[in-house]
């Protein structure tokens, strides 16, 4: 019973094995990819392991406070150096091993040529609630 965040990256993760940009795929291949992820989420809802999932637009912006009375600083879109998150899914599973197993399955979503994309997904545990221990 631990929650994990599965992060998909636009940029910042190691390159996928089947590394073809999505705009080069056939339309059916894109549909198959999306369907795979929908099916995956539906199946996890069925097993009682799904918590949340959203896709994110690629236009990320860094924002920073720039002093009293001044507007926040932004770096503008499309900075070359930053990581970009494409979307996330939150799962609630019995063990770390199960979380890895599910991340592996999601990474097998079909890509170009209908072959698994083998993309790298980031797996991050949530902080839990404090539990009493004998010594405290």
């Amino acid at each position, binding site marked *: *019973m631990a929650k994990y965040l599965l992060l998909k990256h636009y940029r910042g993760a190691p390159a996928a094995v089947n590394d073809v940009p999505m705009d080069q795929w056939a339309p059916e291949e894109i549909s198959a990819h999306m369907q795979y992820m929908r099916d995956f989420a539906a199946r996890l809802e069925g097993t009682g392991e*799904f*918590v949340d999932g959203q896709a994110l637009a690629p236009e990320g912006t860094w924002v920073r406070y720039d002093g009293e009375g001044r507007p926040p600083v932004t770096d503008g879109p499309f900075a070359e150096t930053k990581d970009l998150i494409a979307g996330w899914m939150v799962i609630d599973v019995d063990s770390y091993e199960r979380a890895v197993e599910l991340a592996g399955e999601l990474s097998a979503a079909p890509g170009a040529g209908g072959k698994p994309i083998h993309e790298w997904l980031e797996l991050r545990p949530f902080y839990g609630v*404090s539990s009493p221990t*004998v*010594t405290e």
Partner: protein
Amino acid sequence: MDEALLRSLTPGVLGILVRRGADFAAAEDAVQDALVEAVRAWPADPPRDAKGWLVTVAWRKFLDATRADTARRRREDRLDEEPAPGPAPDVDDTLQLYFLCAHPSLTPSSAVALTLRAMGGLTTRQIAQAYLVPEATMAQRISRAKRTVSGVRFDRPGDVATVLRVLYLVFNEGYSGDVDLAVEAIRLTRQLAAVIDHPEVAGLLALMLLHHARRAARTAPDGSLVPLAEQDRGRWDTKMIAEGVGILRTALARDRLGEYQAQAAIAALHADAPTAGETDWAQIVEWYDELAALTDSPVVRLNRAVAVGEARGPRAGLAALAALDEASAGSSGRGHPVPRHAAVAAYLHEHAGDLATAARLYAEAAGKATDLAERDHLTRRAARLNALLRG
């Protein structure tokens, strides 16, 4: 509308339906329907016999569902099978239900969810809120759990240890949403203690009460952790402590020691001390020795090292820690590190006067903490020592 009463009646009503021949999953659905109806109807028209009312309504719901199901099947298969209502012997099935809800074929999270629903009478929404998952997810988790145990024979004796583990899991989830799971776990463990005479059930109940009695003092108003030594003991619930100690004494007198009784004994020694300085650490070390013999757990031996550090000085604690490291390196190589290992090492080094090592280990421990309050607490400790070292 007495929701506590309503929920306490749940397992009894469920047990009667199952005894009469209802399948567990269908019976559980029917009881939930009856509870919903009770919430609606009772404020205006409270029944004289609450349990009887629930049994009647739940049984009617069950029959309605079965008839609808049977009619559908008849249409589909042209089969005619009306389930015959079985006898309703006057036995308490609560214990059997506990065993069923904690059945070993269920994953821990499913067992917890099913226990809260079937034994606790909580709604799916309440359980989902408590575990911070969507209601649809929790509904699926519960219905899968019901399917998993639907073929399990009701009369076979179950395993008390599994039930206790599930209840302790519920207790450790603490508080979120509109249900206090620690209070719920205590209530369910009390109910279990009433139907089974078992020293470890009493041990777990005592342990929960002793932990729970100190809950108010465990966090500061800003939500940060207050370590045991710095807690305001005036905020401990002395009545609850006295009850826990009483239950523990009775259990220990039966001379069938188990790990919950041993843990409760340690908690009782902490609760007994008027000040942190007066804690009987020597006796706590002895209880850790008992606990280590029962469980052979590295976590227990880690906690024992803390107690040794308090009883015989930080150097002795560090020696106990080194012995633990050697044992785990010898047996399993470098497997999963024991949680809080770095935090314990940091604490012992701090008290031994090696502040630089302690600061480094506190920072390492903060990075490994699995809960937020603990991470913040450890980070503050590291920062405090670093400030001292600079100053």
